[in-house]
């Protein structure tokens, strides 16, 4: 079963990364893209707990680093921390609950962009928070929240099925 799980993780990371970098370029609304890698990391952290969340986060962050960052590891670190923090909510999560993950995802998106803003903009002396908030942060949070629902649902469904088959076997 471990192999199956690993395949599931790897596939979901790769597919989400491809979606993020390829398809969602087409789905830009008002120049804002939803962050599905973030959704993925948070979802797995909530559903599977901290270890898996961190692992997924590390993989996602590393992929982002490889493809867009100039310094390897910065996004990986960020995503690992996100996975760890969100994994704390694993204990409060029940499979029929929807509100908690969605609220978490929106909050995460917001905090994520705030962190990005802090580390990549404020440190370079660009401190026009309001404009950044209006143009990027809030739209991205909303879009991510909207998209989080189906993605979270799909992941949790697959997880549920795998659990069932695990129990059967």
């Amino acid at each position: 079963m471990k192999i199956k799980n690993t395949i599931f993780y790897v596939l979901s990371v790769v597919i989400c990364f491809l979606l993020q970098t390829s398809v969602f370029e087409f789905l830009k609304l008002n120049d804002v893209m939803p962050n599905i890698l973030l959704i993925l990391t948070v979802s797995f952290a909530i559903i599977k707990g901290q270890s898996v969340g961190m692992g997924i986060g590390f993989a996602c962050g590393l992929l982002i680093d490889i493809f867009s960052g100039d310094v390897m590891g910065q996004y990986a670190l960020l995503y690992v921390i996100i996975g760890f923090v969100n994994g704390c909510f694993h204990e409060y999560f029940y499979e029929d609950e929807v509100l908690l993950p969605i609220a978490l995802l929106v909050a995460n998106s917001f905090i994520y962009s705030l962190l990005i803003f802090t580390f990549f903009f404020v440190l370079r002396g660009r401190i026009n928070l309001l404009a950044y908030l209006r143009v990027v942060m809030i739209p991205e949070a909303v879009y991510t929240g909207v998209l989080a629902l189906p993605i979270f649902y799909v992941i949790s469904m697959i997880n549920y099925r795998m659990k069932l088959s695990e129990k059967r076997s």
Partner: protein
Amino acid sequence: MRMQKRKFDSRHYLIIFIGVCLLFIGVSVFAGGVLSPIKNLAMNVLAPMQKGINSFGNGVFSWNEEKKTTKELKDENVILKEKLDAQKLQNKVLKQDQVELERLEKLLKLKSKYKKYNSVGARVISKGSGNWFDIFVIDKGSKDGMKVNMNVISEGGLVGIVYEVDKNYSKVRSIINDTSMVSAMFLKTNDKCIVKGSLDTMDNGYLEVVYIDKSAKVKKGDELVTSYISSKFVEGITIGTVYDVENDSTKLTKTAKVKPSVDFKHLKEVLVITDLKNSVSIDDTMKE
């Protein structure tokens, strides 16, 4: 107890991951080249997939766009057609300007040809009905120093004479007008004659030249210019070339056909010679 163990485990993981990340950061900051093989590997694995998905997405979206844009294309087509028409019009205007430029350049050459006379350019602004410029109006009037009896020339030669001047425009009677009589001479032999204006003959492309002395040695191809004895026309302006000479029935004079060198059908810019001929009316002197 189990929970505690798991939490401990995840904290371990966290520390390991953070350590790895910091290692990556440190390595890439201080020795960027070391990690490039890993980067290349990941790129090589994922780039083709991205490419595939992109082409798929492009296909989907371009199909979508095609569907969407039929109406847009039509609208755009209308707009573009309008633009094209506007451009065509502009192009025409430019072409006309070009033609005008050429004409004006020719006129300028003409001006230097008749340098001894002062002249001003003028534009034909209206004409009598019919294709021939027997009478036409130019856009210079007394305000611009026009006076009655000023000669009007064009690129070919003599056009006519100003017979009426208003403040802003002048009327010109051309040499092909039926009432026009121009005292002329042959450039080579200085034989005097009269060029009779006639729209009738002009329809056949010539003007009649009468009262040529029967002894005059006139032949085809001779150039006809305004004569020095003309009372209104300044001397030496080309009128046309002779293309047929015949004896009158009276045998006292000859009649010739002359082809005007001016294209009277396409007059647009003319030069007005502002020097008036200083003619003394002999009749008046004799009266005194």
